[in-house]
């Protein structure tokens, strides 16, 4: 990566803006954040780009990063792929077809929708489930934050991941090939840009995990596109050409609806959203304490992709709008046999991912045991309030940080106060 960090993150840390309020430290599901010397620090190995800290930070110290419209200038033939969550950002007054037209008016040659692929993607999942009957449950892989969570906290479940590109990437791989072969556009001239609802998808485009390299040329946030789209809305509204919209497949953006897409009566599915729910269910799967599901759809954000931090609208409103569009909007059927052929040919297959466990205290069990013993000893002396005033999320994590040499017992403010009191009383 350009900044020679091992892991790229679409999370920007603006240290100078940090006021050490500790909010981010408390919400991070992988304990990747600390406050040290009054400023926030990010552990690159632990961060899974879920974006919860961005929502928590009120001071602009943790902000999302994504490509801007600028990036599209580099390519001659520009293709946008709209995430299904995009449809939920506009009021009924604007209407989805007009919102989509606005994207053309921003200078894209073609505007594709993630929803185009929903039906064929469900077909792929069903076929995959038949091909791997011994792998159960199969875990959806289209939320990059969940994939990374499994890599860092549940590496034993990596074989259960659906080893298939995400719907947007499947569409990108297929469409790039189509443009090259059918429209004779040189590969180098094509720019494919995902319009994404969350930072984990930005990270996935810029540092793909086990993906086919260079599928997309950028990931632009829905927020960024929304601002530009508003400017061209009047033009788009008076644009009278007919465009296709693929409304039925918008179900992908709503967790529960996405799961039922794949449920054909023989396949038992479960939809789980919100990172703490995801963790709870993954623990149950790991312990084999779960009903026999065939396929589980996971979303790190509550409600599904409509909950991503790069959206404009509240997730519940966005989901309600999408349901409305699906039931009332005009749908266009999209199907290309080429996609099925490419799937059968393995063109969308993902190589098995490697774990990068953050769990192990040491590679040697004896050393790990000694460390753990010291952690427990230190933890027993801490107040157990989990106030995170020390800059670590919990007392136990502070104990770990002390053992790892990253903090000291003096960082505990509660203990320090006791000490001061004790001293006062003794003078």
């Amino acid at each position, binding site marked *: 990566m350009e900044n020679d960090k091992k892991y790229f993150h679409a999370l920007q840390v603006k240290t100078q803006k940090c006021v050490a309020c500790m909010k981010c430290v408390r919400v991070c599901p992988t304990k990747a954040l600390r406050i040290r010397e009054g400023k926030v620090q990010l552990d690159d190995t632990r961060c899974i780009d879920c974006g919860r800290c961005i929502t928590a930070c009120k001071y602009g110290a943790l902000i999302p990063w994504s490509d801007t419209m600028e990036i599209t200038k580099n390519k001659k033939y520009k293709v946008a792929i709209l995430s299904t969550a995009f449809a939920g950002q506009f009021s009924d007054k604007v209407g989805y077809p007009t919102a989509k037209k606005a994207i053309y008016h921003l200078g894209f040659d073609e505007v594709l929708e993630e929803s185009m692929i929903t039906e064929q993607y469900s077909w792929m999942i069903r076929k995959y489930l038949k091909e791997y009957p011994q792998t159960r449950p199969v875990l959806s892989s289209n939320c990059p934050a969940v994939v990374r969570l499994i890599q860092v906290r549940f590496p034993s479940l990596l074989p259960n991941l659906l080893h298939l590109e995400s719907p947007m990437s499947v569409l990108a791989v297929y469409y790039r090939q189509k443009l090259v072969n059918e429209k004779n556009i040189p590969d180098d001239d094509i720019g494919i840009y995902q319009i994404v609802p969350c930072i984990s998808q930005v990270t996935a485009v810029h540092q793909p995990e086990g993906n086919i390299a260079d599928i997309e040329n950028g990931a632009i946030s829905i927020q960024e596109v929304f601002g530009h789209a508003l400017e061209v809305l009047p033009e788009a509204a008076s644009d009278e050409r007919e465009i296709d919209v693929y409304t039925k497949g918008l179900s992908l953006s709503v967790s529960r609806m996405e799961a039922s897409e794949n449920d054909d009566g023989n396949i038992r599915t479960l939809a789980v959203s919100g990172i703490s729910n995801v963790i709870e269910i993954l623990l149950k799967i790991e312990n084999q304490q779960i009903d026999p599901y065939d396929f589980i759809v996971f979303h790190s954000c509550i409600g599904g992709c409509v909950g991503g931090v790069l959206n404009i609208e509240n997730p519940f409103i966005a989901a309600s709008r999408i349901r409305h569009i699906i039931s009332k909007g005009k749908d266009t059927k999209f199907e290309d046999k080429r996609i099925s052929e490419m799937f059968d040919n393995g063109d969308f297959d993902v190589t098995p991912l490697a774990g990068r466990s953050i*769990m*192990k205290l040491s590679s040697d*069990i004896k050393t*790990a045991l000694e460390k753990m013993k010291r952690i427990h000893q230190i933890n027993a002396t801490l107040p157990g309030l989990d106030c995170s005033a020390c800059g670590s999320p919990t007392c136990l994590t502070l104990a770990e940080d002390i053992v790892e040499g990253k903090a000291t017992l003096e960082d505990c403010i509660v203990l320090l106060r006791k000490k001061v009191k004790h001293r006062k009383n003794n003078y």
Partner: protein
Amino acid sequence: MAEYWYIRQEYEERTHQHFDDLPEPVITLDFTLGERDFVNAGNASSQIKMALKRLGVDSAILRRIAIASYEAEINETAHAKGGDITGNIYPEYVLIKFYDKGPGIEDIEQSMIPGFSTADDQVREMGFGAGLGLPNIKKNVDVLHIDSVAGGRTLVEIIVFFS
């Protein structure tokens, strides 16, 4: 008083050594569980599993420990009046003790037969009591020791070796 021992053959020597020497565990994790406390049942086994995961214990072995200890924990809350759970971690194995508050197991041999159950309707309604608990524990552990007094308390001890 009735006692039951199951020791996987390849671990006989190491098991005897443990019970002869009774070494100090490096780490001890203590929990208590109430009767019919289905909300908290599973907490002890997941905490013990989490600790072992952090020690780098192989995931296949972790899974066996998780399944066996979860079953035993459920037994303690569903079939007994709750009790204490202690996870003792040694460099080469984990020993988990479930010491419940009774009412004891009448016939341990019988309770080891898959499908045999004494569970009441309430427990069955919760999805437990299929009579697979103890056999399932046995299947997943290297050592299973049950010591029970009919009408009194039951001690269930399991050992799983890390290699």
